[in-house]
């Protein structure tokens, strides 16, 4: 039963390698995308920190996105 | 609602797409012969200038009860239900090669009715069924 599940009458290697390839390449693209996203969020925050205090306040009041990124990143850190 | 600029862009786009489609259509039309992956026995039967030393592919169904295999290889008949071609081949056939199923043979024509293949590909159909239904569907 178990060995048949793996060998699949000789087709196993093709079936498993195609499913494996889909899962692995999907996972790699996911990691890569997440890494870029995190990198950009960090750079954005850095940019925000360098602004003068009054300006920073102004940005946070006017930009929902800046707010959101700040909140999300302070949660994870 | 649409400004003049927008209208101009729409017209430009339609013209461009139209030209693309027309040109691609003619390219495909002129390539038609080489895009065909295989020829049916009927097409070969009707063709005037057959080349016997160029590689080509013949496709169709393996005729029922036509497979003869011996130590040298296999011989079988490809049919499209109108015309037939005898194929001889030495080598291993794919798993799905069976009588009544689709097949493509690659090789050279000896004459209009005889084909020497150096490669056999099995063509499967678009029906997917569990094995229990095999008897119900009748083939």
């Amino acid at each position, binding site marked *: 039963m178990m060995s048949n599940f793996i060998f*699949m009458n000789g087709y196993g290697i093709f*079936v498993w390698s*195609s499913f494996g390839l889909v899962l692995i390449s999907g996972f790699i693209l996911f990691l890569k995308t997440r890494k870029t996203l995190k990198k950009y969020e960090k750079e954005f925050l850095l*940019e925000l920190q360098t602004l003068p205090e009054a300006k920073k306040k102004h940005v946070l009041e006017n*930009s929902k996105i800046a707010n959101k990124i700040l909140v999300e990143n302070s949660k994870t850190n | 609602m649409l400004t003049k600029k927008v209208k101009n862009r729409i017209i430009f786009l339609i013209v461009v797409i139209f030209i693309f489609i027309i040109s691609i259509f003619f390219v495909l039309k002129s390539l038609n012969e080489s895009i065909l992956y295989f020829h049916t026995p009927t097409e070969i039967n009707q063709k005037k200038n057959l080349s016997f030393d160029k590689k080509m592919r013949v496709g169709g169904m393996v005729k029922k009860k036509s497979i003869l295999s011996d130590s040298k290889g296999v011989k079988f008949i490809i049919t499209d239900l109108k015309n037939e071609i005898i194929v001889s081949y030495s080598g291993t056939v794919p798993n799905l090669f069976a009588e009544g199923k689709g097949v493509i043979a690659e090789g050279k024509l000896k004459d209009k009715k005889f084909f020497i293949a150096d490669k056999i590909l*099995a063509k499967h159909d678009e029906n997917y*069924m*569990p094995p229990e239904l095999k008897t119900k569907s009748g083939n």
Partner: protein
Amino acid sequence: MFNFFSPTNIFLILSRIQKFINSIFFPILIVSLVFALILSPPDRIQGDAMRIMYVHVPSAWLGLACFSAITVLSILAFIFKIKNFFYINKSLAPIGLLFTFLAIVTGSLWGEPTWGTWWVWDARLTSMMFLMFFYISYILCFKFIKKEQLMLKVSSLIAILGAINLPIIKYSVDWWTTLHQPASIKLGVSNSIHSTMMLPLLSMLLVLVLYGALIFLMKYKTEIIRIKKKSIKRL
């Protein structure tokens, strides 16, 4: 009219959708894999090799669907000059490329045990290869053309040219003789896949759609942050 499509508005909605997909993705993935690899029956002719269909067919569909979306958005963006659509396209293209690539490779892995060959130059396989090249040139155009106006024009041109390839892929199996079999699922006609195999196919499709949506959301967020970073000083 297109206020709803403003980056800020979309960004806030996206974060919520992303969280939702994250929470349901893994359960659905596991269930689909169990269905595809264990519970569904083997095919009467192809045996277990037919299980490759569960990843091959959805990948191919989504590869085509992504390119169709890119083309439609490119045309709208060109006519109405909505730049935001280009950012959506830029985020869609990598997923489309991945799915097209997976469709080709899994198709190859399916072809070897059933047809008896990894690759042939028949109309379906060749036109699918063209689709992959269109995706690659589309992505490269965003990467390497620095002048923005030129980049937008070239990318629209690639999208529209590539769109003509889409019906060729779809109908290649009907217009010419190919090694590839005709479509199993046609709208409006009773399809030729048994219901016990249809369920895993649809659930794998759902998994890949959710995955594609997840990647798209992350890519698109990255794009928006990049734009906002440029304009942060002007706020």
